[in-house]
């Protein structure tokens, strides 16, 4: 029988942002070998802003000035255990750096080798990474004053108009107790629901609580329901061929009210009954996979029936249930 695993996945999205008239030239500068700031009144602000922070007045690209490449650390912290989001995998410093010619500090990473090499007031200087994409991570700082080598810049390089940031979070957690019991039931060939102590209704799959009556449910509320039930609603899906689509043929998705349950199981795939023959009120029987072929990859997020435990659903041949009696269950 399959082993139930803890949940471990990364949810991530690439964010693309337009850069605008000031951040665009700033990121272009980092890619091409210089650090730009904005001169606002008497102050030189780095990283640059599109506006005067005191008045909100627009600050245009004509106010861009070069600063650095070296500067002074005004404060810092030593990162002994970098996170997966940090620019280095080994210990390093995050610092506030007042670049030569600037009046404000910039936050950035200093690859100093050891904490002993760091001190407030020390000089640091920029380094350009060999691969630069027009992001703040195109550069980092090192102790000292020695100017960087001018990076190679492609002749045809366009200004940075868009910057991309892949954001993501890794989620690691055990199955919640009610999900674990549900999953163990499926692997053993049983469908486990929960009977609400408030109104006696049986929830399948249960979310671990009765939302209508605001009652948490525990193992003492577990009940087994049948693997046979009645179609309460369905739709025919005709796959649109978008990027990444793997479906080619029309299929049915339906909701089934299992015998002994008061809530329907949604999102059940039907691939071997034609839509002409399919109807609300039809009686269906779940055909289990052999126990060795059932998968245990249930998570805490879905509310359907794990499709990795059954082969298909087939008509029982019993007379239909009157659809009028299913009105409360049409989802």
């Amino acid at each position, binding site marked *: 029988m399959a082993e139930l695993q803890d949940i471990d996945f990364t949810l991530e999205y690439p964010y693309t942002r337009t*850069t605008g008239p000031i951040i665009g030239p700033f990121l272009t500068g980092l890619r091409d070998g210089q650090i730009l700031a904005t001169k606002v009144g008497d102050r030189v602000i780095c990283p640059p802003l599109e506006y005067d922070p005191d008045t909100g007045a627009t600050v245009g690209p004509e106010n861009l000035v070069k600063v650095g490449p070296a500067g002074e650390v005004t404060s810092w912290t030593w990162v002994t255990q970098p996170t997966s989001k940090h620019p280095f995998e080994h210990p390093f410093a995050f610092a506030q750096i007042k670049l030569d010619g600037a009046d404000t*500090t910039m936050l950035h990473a200093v690859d100093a080798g050891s904490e002993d090499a760091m001190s407030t007031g020390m000089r640091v200087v920029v380094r350009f990474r060999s691969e630069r994409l027009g992001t703040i991570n195109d550069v980092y700082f090192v102790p000292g004053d020695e100017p960087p080598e001018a990076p190679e810049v492609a002749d045809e390089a366009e200004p940075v108009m868009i910057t991309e940031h892949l954001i993501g979070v890794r989620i690691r957690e055990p199955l919640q107790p009610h999900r674990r019991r549900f999953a163990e039931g499926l692997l053993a060939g049983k469908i486990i629901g929960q009977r609400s102590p408030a109104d006696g209704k049986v929830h399948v799959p249960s979310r671990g*609580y009765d939302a209508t009556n605001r009652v948490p449910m525990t193992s003492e509320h577990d009940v087994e329901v049948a693997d046979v039930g009645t179609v309460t609603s369905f739709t025919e899906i005709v796959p649109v061929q978008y990027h990444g689509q793997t479906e080619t043929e029309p299929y049915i998705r339906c909701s089934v009210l299992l015998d002994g349950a008061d809530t329907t199981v949604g999102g059940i795939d039907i691939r071997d009954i034609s839509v002409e023959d399919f109807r609300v009120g039809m009686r269906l029987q779940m055909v289990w996979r052999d126990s060795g072929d059932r998968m245990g990859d249930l998570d805490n997020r879905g509310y359907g029936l794990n499709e990795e435990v059954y082969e298909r659903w087939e008509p029982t041949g019993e007379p239909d249930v009157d659809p009028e009696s299913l009105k409360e269950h049409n989802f």
Partner: protein
Amino acid sequence: MSGSAQSQSTQAQRHENDIAIVGFAQTDAHVRYDGPEVVLIMECVNALLAGAGIERHDIDFTIAGSCDYLSGMPFAFVSNVDGMGAWPPVYESHVEMDGAWALFEAWLRLQMGDIDVAMVVGSGKSSPCNAREVFHLQADPYVVAPLGLDPDAMAGIAARSLIESRKATETEIAEVVARSYQAAASNPHAQIRSTASVEELLAAPYDMAPLRAHDVSPKADGAAALLIARRDRARELTDSPVWITGLDHRIESHHAGLRDLTDSQSTRTTAAGSGVADGAVDVAELHVTHAHEEIILRNALNLNGSTAVNPSGGPLAGDPVMATGLVRVVEVARRIAAGEAGRGVAHASSGAALQQNLLCVLEGGA
């Protein structure tokens, strides 16, 4: 604290638009809560309603603060409504912020005068993720967030500025932690049980130097909830209403180079806006997620020895992310309702290095 309770219990003239806290609840700060966030909320809300002697249908407006990123579940805030009671259909709102900001919206909403009672919930289940790998996303998306520069790293930078400008010492920072742990010993909801001395704390290795691991609040799963009502309804619902006499919040620049990280200018502005100095402050619960921030906040709020600061132990003894600010309000309200304090301040913070600050001034008396 109790000494000033009588003097503070003035028979102030309350306006019909005045709003009071009439019930409150909080869960334990769980290192890891095994069940769904919805059940965490449900347990808290059920305790709230039972304690206040009110039914779900008596509530006119419901609002929650939470963060979907923490559980990696887009629209988790929608399922969370199940925990508050989604049936019959509920008039509700949500902020992707600490529950203290949900309180701000509910407080504004009740002042419109057409409804009387609101429920405010803050909840978070952060145990499935590393919160440091989420909250750097609150920073500037072009020049800071891609560095992964998280709030703990920013706190390390701010703490060093504080120490090197001689506004605090490492010993004083350790004293904040030791005092928080001592106070937490009498808080049944706290997460940390420790009797560590200042000397023991200072012997621990640095993590985000000059901070140490214990200077950073331990993230927890938890929820808090409270009920607020307009004056007349509040007096019907309880004999010990806790009046919100001031509520304000301000934010500082996203450009850390424009901020003084050794002070909290936004807290000073917020204190003026919420009237903190208009009376004695018997108790202050401060949203201190990094120990040195208590020193910055005490200075910004002009608190002296007559104020009990974080008598619950504060977030350093348990930080149920997204509920932590609202827990501060619950802790102050609980003490005032019990007559242990007459007037107090609850503080909530958001963003790195105290970027955004909210203050809620509370007062007892009928």
